[in-house]
C-alpha cells in the first residue's frame, strides 16, 4: 500500500506523568489495525491503561519492546496509513497532532498533556530580535568580545531609553558614554564605609546623576549618613574631574535673537519708554546673561544631505501638505542628541539648591512676533515623530505671528532653538532663555565651496551656534552635544547609530 507514515508518540496518560512502561503489545509489525483498536497496554505511575490506535492502517514499526520505560513524547508506533495514490511513504504531515515534530521542542498536543518534557542539554535562550545588537560588532564603545558583563550595559546605544548602567566595580568596563576620559582615575577615598563585595551605597536619583555624568560611584567618597554617596558628592566628583578640559569660545553677550520693536518718537532720535514686552525681554536677558555663565561654541556643517532629505521627504506622499524645513530637521536632531547628552536639558534651581534634569523636552522656538520676542515651546518634543514635529512647529509659528501665543505655550520650556538663518545671518552668541541650560542658533544655509570627497565642491553649509550654562554643562558635554547635532545634519543616517 502506498501510504503515509504516521508516528504515534506516547501521550501523558495522567495528570503530569512523564513516563510509562510498555506492558505488552497487542499487535505486531504488518498487522492491519482499525481506529481505536487496542494496540498496547502501558503502565504509568497511576494506572495500567489500554492504548487505542489513533489511526486505521498497517503497523510499520513498534519502537519499543515490552518492559521498556518510555518517556512521554517518545515515538511508540509507526503506522502506514492510506495516502494519496502513488505518493511515496513519507514521515510526518501536519494533519493531526501526535504525528510530527521533533520531541525536543515543546508541543503541548504532541506530547499530550502534563509536565514539560525535560529538554536535556544545556539550557538555551530563544533568539530575540535585538540579540544581534548585543553580540554584533556594532558596539561602539568596545570590542565585540564580551568579557563577562563588562561592556554590555550602557554600551548598547540601539534601544531608545535603555538606561545606561554604571560601570561595574569588579570588572573594568569599556567606558560608559558619556564618560570623562580626561578625568582619569580618582584615588579611592580612604575609610569608605563600603563593605567589600557590596555595591556603593547611594540613592536612585544620585545613581542616575552619576551615570549621566559618567562618574563611577565606587570612586566617590560618600559624606552622607553612614557614608552614603550624596548628590553633592557626585557633583563634587564631577567638577573635580571635568573642569577645564575644553577651552570654550569667549562668551559675549549680544542679543542676537531679538527683533526690533518699539514705540516711535520724533526727531533725530527715537525714544521709547522701557515697558511691556521690551522691558520684560530685557530683564530676562540681563538676568540670564549675568547669572548663567554663558559659553558659546560654533560648528559649521555641510548640510547637503539634510537638504536632500528635506527634498525627498517633501516628495513623499505621506508628508503631503506638511511643512518640512531645515528647522524641522534641526529640531529633531536636537531631540535625538539630547538623549545622549541629557545635561543640556536641565535647570539650575538656585533656590532649592538642586539641579533639575528634565526627562522630557519642551522645545522652545524663538519667534519674532508683533509683541516682540517670544519663545513658545513644543511640549514633549522628544515623543514626536518628524511629521508631528513639523505640524507642531507650523502651528506654533502661526500662532506666534498671529499674536495668539498662549501662556501655556510660553511656560515650561527646557531648551531652545533660534533660527537666525531666516535673517540671512550665519552665527551669533545666543543668550539662554532664562532657566534653560542651552540654546541653539541655526544660521543660514549657504551654497559654498566646501571640501567634499577630497575635492572642492559647491555644498549647502550651515553654522550652528550653541550657548550653554557652564554651571550645568561642561565644555565636553556641550561639545559632544553640538557635535552630535552636526553629525546628524551632515549625515541623517547617523541617527541609526544614536537611537
Amino acid at each position: 500500500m502506498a501510504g503515509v507514515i504516521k508516528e504515534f508518540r506516547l501521550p501523558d496518560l495522567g495528570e503530569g506523568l512523564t513516563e510509562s512502561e510498555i506492558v505488552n503489545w497487542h499487535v505486531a509489525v504488518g498487522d492491519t489495525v482499525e481506529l481505536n483498536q487496542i494496540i498496547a497496554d502501558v503502565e504509568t505511575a497511576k494506572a495500567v491503561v489500554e492504548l487505542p490506535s489513533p489511526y486505521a492502517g498497517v503497523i510499520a514499526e513498534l519502537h519499543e519492546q515490552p518492559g521498556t520505560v518510555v518517556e512521554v513524547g517518545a515515538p511508540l508506533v509507526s503506522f502506514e496509513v492510506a495516502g494519496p495514490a502513488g505518493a511515496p511513504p513519507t514521515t510526518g504531515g501536519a494533519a493531526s497532532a501526535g504525528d510530527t515534530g521533533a520531541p525536543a521542542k515543546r508541543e503541548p498536543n504532541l506530547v499530550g498533556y502534563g509536565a514539560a518534557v525535560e529538554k536535556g542539554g544545556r539550557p538555551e535562550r530563544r533568539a530575540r530580535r535585538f540579540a544581534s545588537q548585543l553580540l554584533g560588532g556594532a558596539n561602539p564603545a568596545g570590542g565585540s568580545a564580551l568579557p563577562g558583563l563588562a561592556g554590555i550595559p550602557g554600551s548598547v546605544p540601539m534601544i531608545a531609553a535603555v538606561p545606561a548602567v554604571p560601570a561595574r566595580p569588579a570588572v573594568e568596563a569599556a567606558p560608559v558614554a558619556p564618560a570623562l576620559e580626561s578625568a582619569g582615575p580618582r584615588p579611592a577615598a580612604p575609610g569608605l564605609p563600603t563593605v567589600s563585595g557590596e555595591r556603593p551605597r547611594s540613592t536612585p536619583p544620585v545613581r542616575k546623576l552619576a551615570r549621566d555624568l559618567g562618574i563611577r560611584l565606587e570612586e566617590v567618597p560618600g559624606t552622607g549618613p553612614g557614608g552614603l554617596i550624596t548628590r553633592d558628592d557626585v557633583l563634587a566628583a564631577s567638577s573635580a574631574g571635568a573642569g577645564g578640559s575644553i577651552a570654550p569660545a569667549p562668551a559675549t553677550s549680544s542679543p542676537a535673537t531679538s527683533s526690533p520693536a518699539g514705540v516711535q518718537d520724533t526727531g533725530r532720535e527715537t525714544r521709547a519708554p522701557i515697558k511691556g514686552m521690551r522691558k520684560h525681554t530685557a530683564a530676562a536677558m540681563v538676568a540670564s546673561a549675568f547669572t548663567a555663565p554663558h559659553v558659546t561654541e560654533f560648528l559649521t556643517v555641510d548640510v547637503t544631505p539634510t537638504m536632500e532629505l528635506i527634498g525627498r521627504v517633501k516628495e513623499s506622499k505621506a508628508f503631503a501638505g506638511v511643512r518640512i524645513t531645515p528647522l524641522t530637521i534641526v529640531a529633531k536632531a536636537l531631540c535625538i542628541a539630547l538623549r545622549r547628552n541629557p545635561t543640556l536639558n536641565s535647570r539650575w534651581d538656585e533656590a532649592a539648591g538642586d539641579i533639575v534634569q528634565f526627562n522630557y523636552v519642551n522645545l522652545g522656538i524663538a519667534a519674532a512676533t508683533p509683541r516682540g520676542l517670544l519663545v513658545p515651546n513644543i511640549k514633549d518634543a522628544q515623543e514626536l515623530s518628524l511629521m508631528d514635529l513639523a505640524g507642531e512647529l507650523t502651528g506654533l509659528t502661526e500662532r506666534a505671528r498671529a499674536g495668539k501665543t498662549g501662556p501655556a505655550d510660553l511656560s515650561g520650556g527646557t531648551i531652545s532653538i533660534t533660527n537666525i538663518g531666516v535673517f540671512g545671518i550665519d552665527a551669533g552668541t545666543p543668550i539662554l532663555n532664562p532657566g534653560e541650560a542651552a540654546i541653539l542658533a541655526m544660521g543660514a544655509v549657504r551654497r559654498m565651496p566646501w571640501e567634499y570627497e577630497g575635492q572642492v565642491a559647491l555644498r549647502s553649509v550651515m553654522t550652528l551656534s550653541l550657548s550653554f550654562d557652564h554651571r550645568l554643562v561642561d565644555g565636553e558635554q556641550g561639545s559632544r552635544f553640538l557635535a552630535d547635532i552636526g553629525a546628524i545634519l551632515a549625515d541623517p543616517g547617523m541617527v541609526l547609530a544614536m537611537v
Partner: protein
Amino acid sequence: MSTLTFGRAINAGLRRAMDNDPKVILMGEDIGKLGGVFRITDGLQKDFGAHRVLDTPLAEAGIMGTAVGMAYRGYRPVVEIQFDGFIYPAFDQIVCQVAKIHYRTQGAVKMPITIRVPFGGGIGSPEHHSESPEAYFTHTSGLRVISPSNPQDAYTMIQQAISSDDPVLYFEPKRRYHVKGEVDEGSDPAASSMEKACVVTEGSDVTLVTYGPLVPTARDAAVAAGDDGVSVEVIDLRSLAPIDFETVEASVRKTGRLVITHEAAQSGGLGAEIAASITERCFYHLEHAPVRVTGFDIPYPYSKLEFHHLPDLDRILDGVDRVLGRPNSLSGLER
C-alpha cells in the same frame, strides 16, 4: 544516599516521621488504599493501619476542622489537600482556627498541623488543579509556609514541618513530583532549619529569587545567562513565611539587582512582599527597581495557554535584562 523521585522522597519523610512519633497521623481524600492521587502516601495505610492513615469523607472543611480537634487531643495531623484548588472549603478552618488557636489560648494549645498541598501548574490539567494560593497563607499570621524544590529538601522539610509546634503549609510543586534526586535518608532533620533560604547558584550581577517549581527553571536561566556573559545568583527561598531576608539581602547588597519569579499572579503576591522588603533593606544598594516575573493577574488558564502564563527561562531572562538595562521587551517604555 538513595536516588528518589520528589514524590517518593516525601513518602519516605512521612514514613520516618510516623515511625518516630505515634502521634503523627495522616488525613485526606483517597490517601489510603489509593495512596493519594499522586501516590505520595502509597503503602502507608498498609504499613501503619487505617487508624493512622485516614481516608476521610469528601469535605475539606471537615478534614481541617477535625484535624484541629485531633491536635487539641495531642495528635500531629498531616492533612493532604488533594489539589491546590480544593483548599478553599478549608480556608475558613485554616485562617480562623488553625492559625489562631495558639494565639487565642495564649499559648496553651498548640496546633502542630502540617497541611500538604500539591500546587502550581504545568501539568495540563483542567480548572482548579494548577493554582498557586500560597500568598493567601503567607498573609495569614500564625501559619508557617514552606515549599521544597528538590527531593532532599522534600524529605527533610516534611519532617521539619511535622515536628514544628506551629501549623505549617507545605506546598509541593506537583510538576516536579517525578524529578529524581539524591536523598540522604539518614540525615537528621533537626540539624538544619526549614526556614533558611539557599543560594543554589552563585553569581554577582543579578539576584534571582524563587521557590518551589521554578527553582529548576531559574537555575537553567542562570546557566543560559552565563553563556551570555551575565552572572546570576539564584536563591531558593524554601520558606515563604517567614522569608529568610538576610540571605536575600546579602545577595542584593552584592549584586544591586533583584528579580523575583513565581507562578502565582503578580498583584498582591509574594513578589511584591519581597520587592518591598528588599527595597527597604537594600535601598542604597539597588541599581534598579526590583523586577517581578510572575503569572498574570488571571485565573489559571486552560492548559493550551498555560505556558504563556507560567514564567519560563526566556521570560525570566527578559526580567534579568530589565534590571541590567540591557535591551529587553520593554525597552523604550521605561523612563
